[in-house]
């Protein structure tokens, strides 16, 4: 546990000193303006919450996958991956903890998106269920961390994992109901989307902001938590397996 906390704190320290991390956050205002412009053009005030949630979740996801992904990539290029491999603490603990730190900082996109809406269109969001929103966002951070850690672990095996990071993002965001609710996707895509934690998260966020009453909150939160934690477990196990494999193949030393 101490190692995980130390890894979390260390990554926070690194993020504050790394301009690249904050560059990702800077895309949020532009995306927020884009979505709000569309909503405004078609005079659909009922979709304003959607227009703010989408860029928020997109940035959080991108931060997890790209900035989180750099954890392993930078360790490899800086000769630290081998030092981690020789340390008593499993890299399978270190990586999720460090990605979690990145994701926690990524929550800053929420005030950025809200501020953008207020400054550009004078929009103020009235959140119907603040605690549901907070709980859901926390669980989205957990889920994104686990899923991003799974994708990140692939970079141990291959330097070409950037392709995976790129190609996985768009379908994941689509099935996660980030752009539009899952209910609006083709029927055949909905069961797939239900396996993605983000679809439960984005629905809960939208409902928490816009709906006077939200049905089935405990069950939906539990499913979101379960899928998110499953990502953590899979990431941890996967990293252990991959680290064992690269010890055999010698790929851990590839520069």
């Amino acid at each position, binding site marked *: 546990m*101490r*190692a995980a*906390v*130390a*890894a979390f704190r*260390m990554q926070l*320290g*690194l993020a504050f*000193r*790394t301009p690249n991390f904050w560059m990702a956050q800077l895309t949020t205002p532009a995306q927020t303006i884009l979505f709000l412009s569309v909503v405004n053009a078609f005079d659909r005030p009922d979709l304003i919450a959607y227009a703010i949630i989408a860029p928020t979740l997109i940035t959080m996801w991108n931060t997890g996958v790209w900035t989180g992904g750099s954890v392993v990539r930078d360790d490899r290029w*800086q*000769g*630290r991956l*081998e*030092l*981690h*491999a*020789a*340390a*008593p*603490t499993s890299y399978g603990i*270190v990586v999720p903890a460090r990605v979690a730190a990145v994701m926690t900082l990524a929550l800053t996109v929420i005030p950025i998106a809200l501020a953008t809406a207020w400054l550009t269109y004078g929009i103020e969001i009235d959140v119907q269920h603040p605690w549901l929103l907070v709980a859901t966002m926390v669980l989205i951070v957990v889920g994104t961390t686990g899923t991003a850690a799974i994708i990140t672990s692939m970079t141990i095996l291959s330097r070409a994992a950037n392709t995976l990071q790129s190609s996985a993002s768009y379908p994941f965001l689509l099935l996660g109901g980030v752009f539009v609710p899952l209910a609006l996707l083709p029927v055949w895509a909905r069961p797939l989307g239900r396996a993605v934690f983000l679809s439960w998260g984005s629905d809960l966020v939208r409902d928490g902001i816009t709906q006077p009453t939200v049905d089935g909150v405990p069950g939906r939160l539990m499913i979101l938590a379960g899928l998110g934690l499953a990502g953590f477990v899979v990431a941890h196990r996967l990293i252990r397996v991959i680290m064992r494999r690269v*010890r*055999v*193949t*010698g790929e*851990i*030393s590839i520069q």
Partner: protein
Amino acid sequence: MSAVVKTQALRREFRARRSKSGPVVALDGIDLTVEQGEIHGLLGPNGAGKTTLVKILTTILIPSDGTATVLGFDVVDQVEEVRRRIGLVFGGDRGLYTRLTARQNLDYWAALYDVPAATARTRVGSLLERVGLAERADDRVEEFSRGMRQRLHLARGLVGDPEVLFLDEPTVGLDPMASLRFRELVGEIRAEGKTVFLTTHDMAEAEAVCDRVSLIDRGKLLTTERPAVLGRWLNRFEWVEVHELPADLIARFQSMPGVSSVETRPDGWTRVQPDADGVAHGVLEVVVGSGITAVRTGSPSLEEVYLHVMGGRGMEL
């Protein structure tokens, strides 16, 4: 003394992806014993297999064949036990979080080595003091010189209070003063009773700090000796080359006691190869005394030394 590191018939092959050629043999049947409390050097040229051996002993790589134990624990089957008892330091600039401070780097690695927080606070402070970085403890590593970074690397390797410390080419790229300071620190570590396994391609470094040195080349362990013996071997087989050496001097050297061969190449250079102590000096005196200035000397490769010694008169010196 007991064996801290022991390898038997250790072999490691690498197979390149998509390569039609066969596997590359990095280590070929290594039998090695490192005793408790010694500084054991592994000396060999680049590509000899030194780093591969260190990576196997530190559990980063798994051997293709053979066995290796550290403090009695198998490096394949008892990985956790090995990792808790060792420290690892690579040479060069890489391996640190340069945007963090020296203290933050050590704090992080202390946690990864399961050092309790209170102990870590004390130990990190004392290690920074010891490696001469206490006053720069809260400066970012990116502001450090190469020598300072390498001393921080050493502190990082010691933060888990290891029983065995592996140093892989720790002074590569350092200036002479920084290298000297680093070697002094290694000597201090040995004085605490820790075992140090150090790889280097520098005979002078091996002589300066090691109790015993193993020669490795092309994945094979050639021999293990005290550094003084290896140094004598290198001096003994130091060669002299002369450009356009006159025939009378060639004949003189051919009959000189302690000269094993005199060979002239098509480019006009003649190599005089001694095989006894002090003979190279005598050859040089004759050459310079005859007014020749196109002369150069050189040390034999480790393999040449080994072949001279083993192929000629065995190990007695």
